[in-house]
């Protein structure tokens, strides 16, 4: 085979380029510490690489959500543990003052203590996390509980709603963040549950005429008297009214009551909007026809405590003992809520731990496909450097002499 001079140069040049190319690529790996610097470096691994990166990012976000939720839980935990403590105090006072050894004097001073307890619990129920009231549902900027005097009667009103907040603490895993203040502190079930009205057009709606009630015999016209605490309203009922008319009349009566059709559409429920009052509908034919005769007293924290205070102030041991009994059940409710917070906090903690170890695992997996093996790269780089230098040396020895150098 003939070797032309050009070929010698050409080959030398090509070998140099190839060696240098390999050298540069290794050098890039060395500089970035990465095996994959662009998709074509490892096309098969790139999709997985990107998905791992996404997972790590997600985990970081979930961890920050969990941090946020944990601090929420610790605020709720402090608040509820104090509520439980205060309720225990209230129970001790009730038992003590319910006994025969108590007298008007001691009961008056106990009433003051209970009053302060109520204030403290209202304050705890109005706990905030950052700028958000934690017990007011979605109405996070509205103070959930307020102590008010309604017609000379002391009540506690819930101003929040029953909005449930969800957060995502893992891929597709949602957790409830908040607890509804109404469920813990004031009882939504305090209502007069209306009897079945036997409407001929069941279920009843707002537009159902009262004439369909009681198997079509309708409702006797007349008045219905509703007492809520010290407030009283007299509703006039005409035989031609519709259900909607009645509901509207009750809702607009201005005595903090709310009426609605029950879930099955068979009757009308009436509910007090505040804790601490007795809701009563006087018995007469019209009220009976509407199925709303009855008495309801809220068995919730504020209702019971307000009645205890009432009993103490009025020196009524029956009332005091009754309240003492009821404190147990409301205490249960507070405890339940407290335990719930603890359970969620624990779940968050476990998820945090799991996420942490998952992140580490994923980071390792990512590193395995994306990061360069530095030891390997270093060795290879040294080798390539060696090759490159030897090549340079060999080229100088090959290229320099030609026959012409020897023709003198």
């Amino acid at each position, binding site marked *: 085979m003939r070797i032309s001079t050009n070929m010698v140069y*050409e080959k030398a040049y090509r070998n140099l380029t190839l060696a240098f190319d390999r050298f540069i690529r290794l050098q890039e790996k060395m500089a970035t510490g990465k095996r994959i610097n662009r998709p074509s470096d490892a096309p098969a691994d790139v999709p997985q690489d990107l998905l791992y*990166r996404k997972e790590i990012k997600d985990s970081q976000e979930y961890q920050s959500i969990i941090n946020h939720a944990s601090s929420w839980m610790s605020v709720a935990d402090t608040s509820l543990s104090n509520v439980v403590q205060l309720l225990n105090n209230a129970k001790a006072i009730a038992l003590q003052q319910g006994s025969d050894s108590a007298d008007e004097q001691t009961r008056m001073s106990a009433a003051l203590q209970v009053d302060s307890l109520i204030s403290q619990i209202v304050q705890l129920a109005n706990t905030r996390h950052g700028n958000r009231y934690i017990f007011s549902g979605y109405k996070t900027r509205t103070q959930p509980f307020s102590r008010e005097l309604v017609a000379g009667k002391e009540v506690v009103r819930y101003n929040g709603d029953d909005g449930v907040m969800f957060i995502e603490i893992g891929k597709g895993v949602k957790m409830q963040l908040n607890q509804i203040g109404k469920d813990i502190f004031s009882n939504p079930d305090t209502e007069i549950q209306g009897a079945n009205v036997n409407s001929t057009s069941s279920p009843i709606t707002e537009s159902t005429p009262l004439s369909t009630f009681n198997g079509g015999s309708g409702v006797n016209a007349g008045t219905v008297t509703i007492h809520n605490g010290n407030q009283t309203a007299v509703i006039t009922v005409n035989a031609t009214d519709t259900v909607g008319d009645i509901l509207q009349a009750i809702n607009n009566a201005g005595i903090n009551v709310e009426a609605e059709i029950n879930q099955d559409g068979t009757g009308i429920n009436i509910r007090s909007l505040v804790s601490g009052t007795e809701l009563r509908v006087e018995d007469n034919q019209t009220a009976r026809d509407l199925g709303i005769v009855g008495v309801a007293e809220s068995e919730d924290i504020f209702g019971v405590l307000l009645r205890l205070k009432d009993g103490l102030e009025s020196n009524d041991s029956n009332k005091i003992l009754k309240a003492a009994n009821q404190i147990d059940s409301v205490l249960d409710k507070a405890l339940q809520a407290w335990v719930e917070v603890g359970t969620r906090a624990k779940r968050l903690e476990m998820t945090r731990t799991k996420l942490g170890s998952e992140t580490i695992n994923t980071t390792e997996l990512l590193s395995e496909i994306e990061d360069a093996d530095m030891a390997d790269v270093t060795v290879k780089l040294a080798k390539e450097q060696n090759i490159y230098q030897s090549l340079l040396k060999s080229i100088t020895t090959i290229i320099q002499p030609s026959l012409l150098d020897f023709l003198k």
Partner: protein
Amino acid sequence: MSGFAGLSIAMRALRAAQMSMEVSGHNIANANTPGYSRQRVELVESLPDLTPWGVKGTGVEISRIARVREEYLDLQLRNETKLLGQWEEIEKFLSRLELYFNEPSDEGLNNLMSEFWARWQDLSLTPEEQTSRSNLLQQSDVLANAFNTLYDKMQDLRYDADEAIKSYIQEINSLAQNIASLNKQIRFYEVGDAVANDLRDQRDEMLRELSELIDFNSEEQPDGTILVSIGGVNLVNKVFTEEMSYRFNEEGHIVPIWKTNNAPVEIKAGKLKGVLDARDNKIPTYISRINEIARAIISEVNKQHSKGWGLEAFSSLRSAYSISDTGEEISSSDSGLTFYNVVNDGDFVITVNDDSGNTVSTDTVNIVTGAGGTTTDDIVSTIGSDFTSGISHLRAYVDSDGYLNIEAEAGYRFFINQDTSGALAALGLNTFFKGEDAGTIAVNDPIVENVKFIAASSSGEIGDGNNAVEIAQLKDATLMDNESATIYDYYASTLGVLGVDKKESENLKKGQEVLITHIKNSIEDVSGVSLDEEAMNLLKFQHSYQAAARFLGVIDEMLDTLINEVGRR
């Protein structure tokens, strides 16, 4: 034998040696000339004399100066060169794409998408806060810009390709001119048996250069000229050339054509093919994939967003998408809506509030799809074209640009949401994004103006971030590829495909390079100038020349003796 015959032998020998040395010199001089093939003086014995004693040699004669070349190697070289050019170009463009995507890194779309969804999560934790809304807006801007930039860069790359095509067309034309003029010279020089070695070398080199750009057929004609044809059109025929030109297609891109008849040039290989392939096939694939991702994000986020409530009601609202025919069903492409296909049977709710936030009315608007379904006109008439008809205190109209407008009477505001039909997403009412692909995706105007319009709430209450959670969860929903892949899956596989594409072109290019090196070696093996060899030749012919000169001296002495000495006796 005449004494003078020796003189002519000597003379021819001298000339042969001299010529050979000159050719060696020529070879040495052109050792580095691209495409040059070494030349050789072909010597033959001159015609012998017939003498009574037999046939007597008369010395040496120069037969011809030949170039040493294997034509079939040239053909092979050209065939492989055109493929190299093609893959070189494709590889060049794909590596630019890799650069644009910038993955894996913290600056790529992958990471920006994660940041985007994370800001929705953050918003769900504190939906009341202005800052969490502003952070989301800012991150969404960053994401939208990243999509826009990537899209623009890829589109620009296609215009860069046009520039390359223009310059290649110019090069082809100038090569054709050169080949034609070489044809002319070769035809001129090659009368009789003469071979225009150097001109042919030049022409071969031109053909090789041409093969880098485009594939062609070449055929040598009896008169020594070469016929170069591309897809049946003669680029060079004897001394004439066909000029290549270009026109613009409907996309505004260049299409190579023949100037004479405006017919498109048939291009099967070469750099031109590579650039065209990159411009018309490779890059558009990635553009359309990015578009699909952007479209999925736009339509899915909008669908969920239009279910929710912002912190503030609207006093007026303009749809983000225009309607070309208000009498057509919004679920049909004839309506001109970009996202007509997200519309299903369902309804949305319009809530009118007075200025103090008390609800005045709540109306449910039913959406029916299919023939005879809900049209834009239907929606306009449901809302009413003045404040009294339809929904009180609201009016709706389609403006001259085809956008649906809803306005509240002074003293009133409205919410439009709880959409189960996708109609609001299709129209772009109470939506988060506007735009229809990666090039146009942007945050919708109302939200840019007032972040309180971000619908984080699913109930209208301030502390409710549930709709934000729902939106954040879209990140893991299988929205793409017939609901088989998440946005991330699709994006990751796109990058995987790009990697494979680039690697493939790289490998094919390298393979071609190896092949061509091999062929070039074979050509060099035959035609290349070896300085050592030429030095040897010089030495050899120098000695021949010296010996012939010596022989001439001897003849001279002999004749001298014969002429000067013999006559004196």
